[in-house]
């Protein structure tokens, strides 16, 4: 591990490596701070631009974005009660009241410190788990990888907040899209409808840019307006007091970070759940729960530590098994594919140096973004006043030029727009996009593992149930699928009991 860390350090700490890290931090910070954009859009937009870069530079850039967006989103959450991204929503509850009391500096200082320390704890956990993850990876065969892919999809579908059935439907559609093109098992071309463009399957970059960035632009076109109407009366002072407050409330910090890391490791659950659970936990253990929602600094520390710790957590299944832990890491896998690095269980074994440079980039980003944020907070708040009618054509233009630049193929641009409309419709009708995207990424692995498993066992399906790890994963899949029904039954019993 230390040798790999040293390789990662050597890759990161070059002039260009540090430059790309700083660029990623700035982009992630700005995108996190602008409501409606976020890290997913930032990485989706940057992905085609990384095409000409060295793989380690591309990964450093993306790592910089990943570590910075969470804190970027806390700036408008605190200053104008508008979370930059969904996972900063919990920060609004106490951050904005603090700002209105003239303690924005306190809140921002606490958010910056909690974010960076939470992120560091998440990365540290990742570093501890990864060497063990290699042993686990080597114990996995095709049946286990197939079941893991199914568990990833089931877990994500369950986590989609009330849209479990539609989450499974999205996953099935994503798998159907993943089957388009050359069949690596049978050797033929499937579902391409005579289009040579689709022989290599649905290209990941244009589809991700479309389903996230373009879809968000359609949504913003409809919503219109600006995010906030005023920044007058907002003072930014007392930043150092905020930094000190985090150390005084270190149990809150540790608890939030642990929650964030654990929940981040669960595929598809995401930072939003982590930050709300961390906030709820802080309220429940507090001796003064009534003060929450009125400017309690612990209400800022808890969610901010969780939503950055989740970055390290979400990289655990991503790097160990090639199963994305979040939408950002799903797109990150697209970046790896773009640079000829195949995600999956062998990633850790074959590209250890690059992976450690990513981890170090995320670490550096957590610290850098906090430092940048503290120095630019007041000015950055003005970004949220940018009218969406300036933002939308800018983002659409840059995104689609970037998509075209990948292969100099207009079909990619058309595909991005098709997926943009699809993404918008999915949001409109409550079909989770994350399950479709993860199924699109996992589909090939799932099918290949399925066929390899059957070949291993001479066509016997029992191979999935006679191996310990595979059977365990299968049981977990069933638990995930049964979870909504279990919640329903338990909820009814509770309400009958209360009555």
């Amino acid at each position, binding site marked *: 591990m230390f040798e790999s860390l040293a390789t990662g350090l050597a890759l990161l700490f070059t002039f260009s490596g540090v430059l790309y890290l700083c660029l990623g931090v700035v982009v992630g910070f700005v995108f996190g701070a602008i409501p409606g954009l976020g890290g997913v859009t930032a990485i989706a937009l940057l992905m085609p631009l990384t095409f000409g870069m060295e793989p380690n530079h591309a990964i450093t850039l993306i790592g910089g974005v990943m570590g910075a967006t969470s804190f970027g989103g806390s700036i408008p959450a605190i200053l104008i009660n508008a979370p930059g991204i969904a996972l900063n929503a919990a920060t609004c509850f106490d951050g904005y009241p603090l700002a209105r009391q003239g303690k924005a500096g306190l809140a921002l200082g606490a958010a910056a410190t909690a974010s960076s320390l939470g992120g560091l704890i998440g990365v540290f956990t990742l570093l501890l788990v990864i060497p063990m993850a290699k042993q686990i990876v080597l114990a996995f065969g095709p049946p286990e990888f197939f079941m893991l892919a199914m568990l990833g999809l089931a877990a994500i579908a369950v986590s989609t907040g009330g849209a479990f059935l539609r989450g499974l439907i999205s996953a099935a559609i994503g798998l159907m899209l993943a089957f388009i093109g050359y069949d690596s098992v049978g050797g033929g071309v499937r579902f391409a409808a005579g289009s040579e463009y689709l022989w290599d399957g649905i290209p990941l970059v244009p589809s991700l840019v479309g389903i996230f960035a373009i879809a968000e632009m359609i949504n913003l076109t409809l919503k219109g307006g600006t995010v906030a109407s005023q920044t007058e009366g907002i003072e930014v002072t007392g930043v150092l007091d905020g930094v000190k407050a985090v150390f005084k409330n270190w149990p809150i910090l540790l608890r939030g970070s642990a929650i964030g890391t654990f929940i981040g490791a669960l595929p598809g659950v995401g930072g939003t759940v982590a930050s709300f659970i961390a906030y709820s936990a802080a309220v429940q253990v507090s001796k003064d729960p009534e003060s929450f929602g009125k400017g309690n600094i612990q209400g800022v520390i808890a969610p901010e530590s969780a939503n950055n710790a989740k970055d390290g957590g979400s990289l655990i299944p991503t790097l160990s098994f090639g199963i994305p832990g979040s939408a950002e890491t799903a797109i990150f896998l697209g970046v790896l594919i773009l640079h000829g690095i195949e995600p999956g269980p062998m990633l850790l074994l074959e590209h250890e140096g690059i992976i450690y440079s990513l981890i170090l980039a995320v670490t550096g980003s957590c610290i850098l973004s906090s430092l940048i944020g503290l120095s630019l907070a007041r000015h950055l708040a003005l970004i949220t006043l940018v009218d969406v009618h300036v933002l939308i054509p800018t983002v*659409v233009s840059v995104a689609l030029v970037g998509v075209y630049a990948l292969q100099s193929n207009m079909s990619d641009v058309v595909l991005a727009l098709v997926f943009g409309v699809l993404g918008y419709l999915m949001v409109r009708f409550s079909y989770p996009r994350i399950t479709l995207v993860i199924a699109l990424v996992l589909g090939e692995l799932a099918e290949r593992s399925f066929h390899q498993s059957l070949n291993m066992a001479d066509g016997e399906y029992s191979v999935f149930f006679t191996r310990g790890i595979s059977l365990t994963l299968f049981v977990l899949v069933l638990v995930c699928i049964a979870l909504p029904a279990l919640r329903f039954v338990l909820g009814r019993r509770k309400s009958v009991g209360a009555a």
Partner: protein
Amino acid sequence: MSDGRAGDRSGLAPALVVLALSVGYLPWAYSYDDQGQLVPVLIGWLLLGLSVLDIVAHTDTRFGRTLFALVSGRAMDAGTEEPGTTHGFRRQAVAVLWLIGFLASVGLVGFLATVPIYVLAFMTIQGRKPLKQSIIAAVAVTFVVWVAFDVLLRYEVYPGILFGG
């Protein structure tokens, strides 16, 4: 807002579309050889079953409501995405038409000519911004695109059919 609740008829239409998709997909999947069709056929049948459940869950019947409660439940928060707020069909069509217009223009005259036209048109027509502000934004965005892609990254930016694309 379509939030997928039982009895929400606006949620029924997409469920029917998905059903039609699965019905159309299955014969296509069966047309491949045994190995090539195996997993797609399984997924096709799975989708068919799920879409039937989804349709039933959207009917305003006791069974539909119970089924909906069973298969949806509520996670601790609203998940990572917000459901779309309902906008009129015309507004949604206009939002999509802007993108189609962008694509058509790129096809004809290329990106570097389209970007300023698109930014200017979008800001003045859709956003009703002042002309001067729109022109400045159009010039700025075009400059950024040109410098970033053409100059710094040396990517070939599509010139359009009319200019030799």
